[in-house]
């Protein structure tokens, strides 16, 4: 994926056919993080928060359903995603970039959880098709996220070297 330009109406990206296929493939996994993953409180034993925990889970589930609908509808619109001579062009408003970032990170984190929270330097052996799928999804989501963030001017700083 390549960032082409930012216009008043949105950020324009160029995708190769394989990248377009991978984007739709990883988004088909969304939402992936279990609704019970998020806790209001670390220990989970604060009676004042018990009732609110259920509300939080319901609210997050509703938010993800809505985000899923928005992202899928968006990618069906030709003004958002259309084929070109060299592949595909993706045009996103700032709001649509946020929708996509949330969906991609959900799939990235969800894949990581499904793989057992491996450390960054762990070599994952794709023993099964399911492991291979999550491993690929994790990397692909990270790649798309980095490109979207770079288009917003958020890139790694030299101060982070070594981290």
């Amino acid at each position: 994926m390549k960032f082409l330009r930012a216009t008043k109406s949105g950020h324009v990206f160029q995708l190769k056919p394989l990248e377009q296929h991978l984007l739709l493939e990883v988004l088909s996994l969304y939402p992936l993080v279990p609704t019970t993953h998020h806790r209001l409180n670390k220990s989970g034993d604060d009676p004042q928060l018990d009732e609110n925990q259920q509300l939080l889970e319901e609210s997050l589930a509703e938010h993800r359903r809505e985000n899923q609908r928005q992202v899928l509808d968006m990618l069906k619109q030709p003004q958002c995603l259309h084929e070109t001579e060299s592949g595909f062009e993706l045009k996103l408003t700032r709001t649509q970039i946020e929708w996509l970032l949330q969906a991609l990170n959900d799939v990235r984190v969800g894949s990581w959880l499904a793989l057992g929270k491996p450390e960054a330097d762990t070599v994952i052996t794709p023993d099964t098709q399911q492991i291979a799928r999550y491993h690929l999804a994790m990397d692909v989501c990270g790649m798309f996220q980095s490109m979207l963030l770079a288009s917003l001017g958020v890139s790694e700083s030299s101060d982070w070297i070594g981290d």
Partner: protein
Amino acid sequence: MADTEVLPAIEREKKTRAKSELETGWLVICWDDPINLMTYVTHVLQSVFGWNRQKAEHHMLEVHRQGKSVLARTTMEKAEHYVHELQKYTLHATMEREP
């Protein structure tokens, strides 16, 4: 004449507001999930809290290097709001009672 002083309504309102502003007691904490991209965490903190890049990076690096960062000290209601917003982005955030 009564000994007690009756404050004008506007004064009472000011005192009430000042009291509620002091009723904080909750910390919004972001925990390290090594899977999250550093750039992504920086972006989310800027979006949710409206911070500038420098402040967002400071907290992101604290999460990355120390395992957690206290993002806000606030009321229960606001803490719930922030935690919810951060979790929409799949960041690992919780609210804890201030010790």
